[in-house]
C-alpha cells in the first residue's frame, strides 16, 4: 500500500545543501503497525513529512494506495491528506475553546460531508478511540492529556484514512497515559485493521509496534519484525497493580 523507492530529500543547494534522507526504500502493507525509530537528526521527521504528504521528496517515488504522490502540487497533496491520512501529533493540536465533537468532525468539514453524517461519524470515531460520550460536548481545554490524545486519535480516524501517522504521540504524556494511547493504537490496528505508522525516538515505545524501521543519519540501518511486541493493555494492568500496592 505504501511504497517508497530511493527517496532522497535535500534542503538548500550548492555547498550549503543538507541531505536529510538518502535513498530510502521500503514498503508497508495494509494493516501493518510500523514504528519508525531514530535519534533526533536521523531524518525521521523529514520522512514523516513525506509519508504524511506534507512535503515532497527531492528524488525518488512515493506511491500511496496506488497513486504516485511524489510530484503532486500543494493542493493535490491537501486532497490526499484529506482522504488518505490521519495525523496524531505530539502536541495534540486540538482547536482550543472548541468542543471535542467539533474538533473530531473538522476533517469532515473540509471533506464536505453533511451535518448529520458528520456527527455520527465523529461519535463513532470517539468511541473507537476509547472516549466515553459524556466528554463529547466538553471543550478541548477541559480534558486531561490522555483524553486529549484520544480526541486527536479520533480525529485521525474520522475520515476513514488508509494510514494513521502518529508523530511522537506519547512525547508529551506520562508513562501511564502513554500506555493508554499506545493501547488505543494497538487496538485500532488489531481489531479494526488500521495501518499505523508510529514515529518515535524511544525504543520502548517503538517496541509496541509489529515492525521497527531504524533510521540513522538519513539512512535505514535496520528494518525487521519486532519479535517481542509489548502489549500496552497488559502493561497498564501491571502498572496499576504496582501503583495500588
Amino acid at each position, binding site marked *: 500500500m505504501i511504497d517508497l523507492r530511493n527517496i532522497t530529500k535535500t534542503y538548500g543547494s550548492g555547498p550549503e545543501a543538507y541531505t536529510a534522507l538518502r535513498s530510502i526504500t521500503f514498503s508497508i502493507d495494509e494493516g501493518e503497525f510500523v514504528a519508525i525509530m531514530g535519534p533526533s537528526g536521523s531524518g525521521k521527521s523529514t520522512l514523516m513529512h513525506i509519508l504524511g504528504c506534507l512535503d515532497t521528496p527531492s528524488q525518488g517515488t512515493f506511491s500511496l494506495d496506488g497513486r504516485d504522490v511524489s510530484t503532486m502540487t500543494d493542493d493535490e497533496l491537501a486532497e490526499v491528506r484529506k482522504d488518505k491520512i490521519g*495525523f496524531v501529533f505530539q*502536541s495534540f*493540536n486540538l482547536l482550543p475553546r472548541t468542543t471535542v465533537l467539533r474538533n473530531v468532525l473538522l476533517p469532515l*468539514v*473540509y471533506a464536505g460531508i453533511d451535518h448529520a453524517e458528520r456527527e455520527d461519524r465523529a461519535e463513532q470515531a470517539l468511541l473507537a478511540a476509547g472516549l466515553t460520550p459524556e466528554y463529547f460536548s466538553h471543550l478541548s481545554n477541559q480534558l486531561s492529556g490522555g483524553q486529549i490524545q484520544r480526541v486527536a486519535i479520533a480525529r485521525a480516524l474520522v475520515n476513514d484514512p488508509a494510514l494513521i501517522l502518529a508523530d511522537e504521540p506519547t512525547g508529551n504524556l506520562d508513562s501511564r497515559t502513554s500506555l493508554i494511547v499506545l493501547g488505543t493504537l494497538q487496538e485500532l490496528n488489531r481489531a479494526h485493521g488500521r495501518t499505523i505508522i508510529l514515529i518515535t525516538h524511544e525504543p520502548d515505545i517503538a517496541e509496541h509496534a509489529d515492525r521497527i524501521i531504524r533510521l540513522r543519519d538519513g539512512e535505514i540501518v535496520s528494518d525487521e519484525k519486532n519479535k517481542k511486541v509489548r502489549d500496552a493493555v497488559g502493561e497498564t494492568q501491571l502498572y496499576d497493580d504496582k501503583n495500588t500496592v
Partner: protein
Amino acid sequence: MKNRDLIDETYAALSANKSRSALTILGIVIGIASVIALTAIGQGAQNSIQSSIQSIGSNLIEVLPGAARQIGFGASGGRGTARSLTNADKTAVANVANIAAISGEYSSRFQVAAAGANTNTSVDGVDAAYASIRNLVIDQGTFITDVQSSSLARVAVVGPTVVTDLFGASAVASDAIGARIRINNLQFTIQGVTKTKGGSGFGNQDTMIYIPIGTALQYFAGASNQYLSTIDIQAADQTSMTQVQNDVTSLLLTRHNITDSTKADFSILNQADIVSTASSITSTFTTLLAAVAGISLIVGGIGIMNMMLTTVTERMREIGLRKAIGATRRDINMQFLAEAVALTFVGGALGIALGWGVSYLVSSFGIVQAQVTLSSVLLAFGVSAAIGIVFGWYPARRASNLNPIDALRYE
C-alpha cells in the same frame, strides 16, 4: 468547505476574542458613521442654503451698478457705491418681454429712532412690486404702493426685528402700526410689518425698513444723485430667465452707449447662477467632509488588517493543523477573508445606524436639517465590504501560503 461551515467557523473565530473583535469593528463603525453623518450634514447645509436662496424670490434677476463682481469671494465695491443705474433705466427695462415684475431699489443705512430707542439699520427705497418679487409677506398693515412712491409719502414698512428693537422686546407687530419713527431725522409713519422670515445668507430681511422709492430718492439721495442701488426683476418663468437677462443686458448697453460688453458699467446676477454657484461651493464642502471621514475609514481598515495579521500569527498552528487534515489554500484563504469581511460588514451596519442617529440628533437640535441619502448608505456599505476584502486579502493570503510543516512547528 461549505458556506454554512464558513459562517460557523467565522462566528466561532470572531467570538473567541470578543473585545478585540469589538474594538476592530469600532474603527469601522466610526469611519462609516462619520461618512454617513458628515455627508448628511453637508447635504442638509446645501439644501438649507439653496432654500434660503430660493426664499429671496423666484426667477429673480438683479441688475447691479458697477462692473461684474464675483459671487462669494473677491472684494466688491459694495452695493450702491457705483453709480450707473437710473430710474429711467428701470422704466426702459420694464418693457422687455417676459418680465413679471420689476422694482428699483435704493439702499442705505441710517440711524432710526422711535420713543427713545434707536437702532442703525438698512433702509430700502422700493417699488410696490418689491414685495412680490422678494417673497415678502406682510404680517400687519399694508405694503408700499406706487401712488405713495410718486406722492413721496413718508411711510415705512418694517421688519419684525425692527419692531422689537424700537418698541421693546415684548412689542408685537400691531403695536407698531401707525407709530412714528425718525429715519435720519425725518419722520415716517409705520404702515406695515413684514412676517418673520429668519435671516441667513443673503441679508436678514427681518431687520429691514422699506420706504417708497420716490421718497428715498427725494429725501436721502439728493437732487444730483438719482441713482439706484439695484434693479430687481422677476422673470415670467424659469425658462425665460436667460432671455430676459440677455435682453436687459443689450438694452442697458445700448442705453449707456457701451459697445464692448466686457466694459459694462453694470452687472446682472441671475438667481439660477447664485444657486448653482452656492451648490457647487457646498458640494465641494460636502466632498471635503466626506474625504476627512474617508480617512478615518481607511484607518479603520488598517485596524482590520492589523488584527487579521495578529490572528494569523496567533493561529499559526491551527492553520497548520487545518492544512494537515486537508484544508486547501482556498479554504484557508476564504476563512480569513470571511473573518475580515464579517468584521467590516458588522461595522458597516452599526456605522450606518450610528451615522443615522447622529444625523437625526443634529436635525432635532436644529443645527442643520441633515439628510441621509440612500446613495451615501449604499456607498458606505460598498466601501466597508471593499475594505474588508482589500485589507483582509493580504493576511488571508499570508495564512493560505503558510507551509503546513512550519505552521505546525510554530511556537
